[in-house]
């Protein structure tokens, strides 16, 4: 499994979710949860590489600020615009990750997880394969990067 010196809380959370995803996949019968844990693992891996970082203030034009955590960023964003965290994270990934494959893999995870409820969580093997490919790619990108 992925290791890091002085791992951040999001990294530890990402690894925890990744391990849950792998265990559920091996166990079988929980495809909806495989996709869900893959998505939340991917989100946390990306959160780990995106923070801390200096970003443009989401509301005050021309102002930059160092954000130590994703929560502190969403606080500034959400308070003014009421956007949800998933939307904010997607925008951050799209604007700040320079590998289009990783952006697309994250989109794969997000959409396959969020639309599962529209098929009553009857998640098939195709969707599981898509999610596991995506989370492997994101994990490798975030750990090696």
């Amino acid at each position, binding site marked *: 499994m992925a290791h890091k010196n002085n791992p951040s809380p999001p990294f530890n959370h990402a690894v925890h979710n990744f391990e849950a995803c792998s265990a559920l996949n091996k166990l079988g019968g929980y495809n909806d949860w495989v996709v869900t844990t893959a998505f939340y693992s991917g989100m946390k891996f990306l959160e780990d590489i995106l923070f801390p970082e200096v970003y443009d203030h989401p509301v005050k034009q021309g102002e930059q600020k160092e954000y130590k955590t994703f929560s502190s960023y969403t606080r500034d964003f959400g308070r003014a615009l009421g956007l949800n965290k998933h939307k904010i994270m997607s925008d951050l990934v799209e604007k700040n990750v320079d590998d289009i494959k990783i952006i697309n893999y994250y989109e*794969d995870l997000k959409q*396959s997880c969020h639309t599962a*409820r*529209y098929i009553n969580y*009857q998640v098939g093997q195709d969707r599981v394969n*898509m999610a596991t490919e995506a989370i492997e790619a994101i994990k490798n990108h975030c750990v090696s990067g």
Partner: protein
Amino acid sequence: MTDNSVNDPKLLDFNFVGDEHFSFEDMLHHAYLEGKKDFQKELISKMQNGLQTSAMTSSLFKEKLKEQNIEVKDMFLRILDLTEFECLVLISDKAYYSKEMRWSAYNIARNLNNRIDEIDLKFSLMPYSEYIKKDTITSEGYCFKYGAQE
């Protein structure tokens, strides 16, 4: 009845000429109601324009997907807020599970969204399936269905 003594605006050389039936407070109240109507009209108009742009862009997205041999089975549209809309696009299983086709669709969606300034239109893709729960989709605010007659 209104008490003008509590509303004593400083208007330099201007003085209130109304009687006890027409006070500064009444004027403010009237202005508020009129302003509220105008503001509501403006909001409705902005929302309608945004919705129209979303519908047109979604149709264009469908056309562009067709050019890439990606078959759109159904589309639903919802309003997230005044300037934010989301289109749920159900495409064929075959196209969705082809990484090349799916990622090509993401790219088209990004390009279309970048071309619109006044609204943010997000496209969500999913494979068409016999398990589709349209009730769940509409219950999450997708009130507009592509090609719906009723």
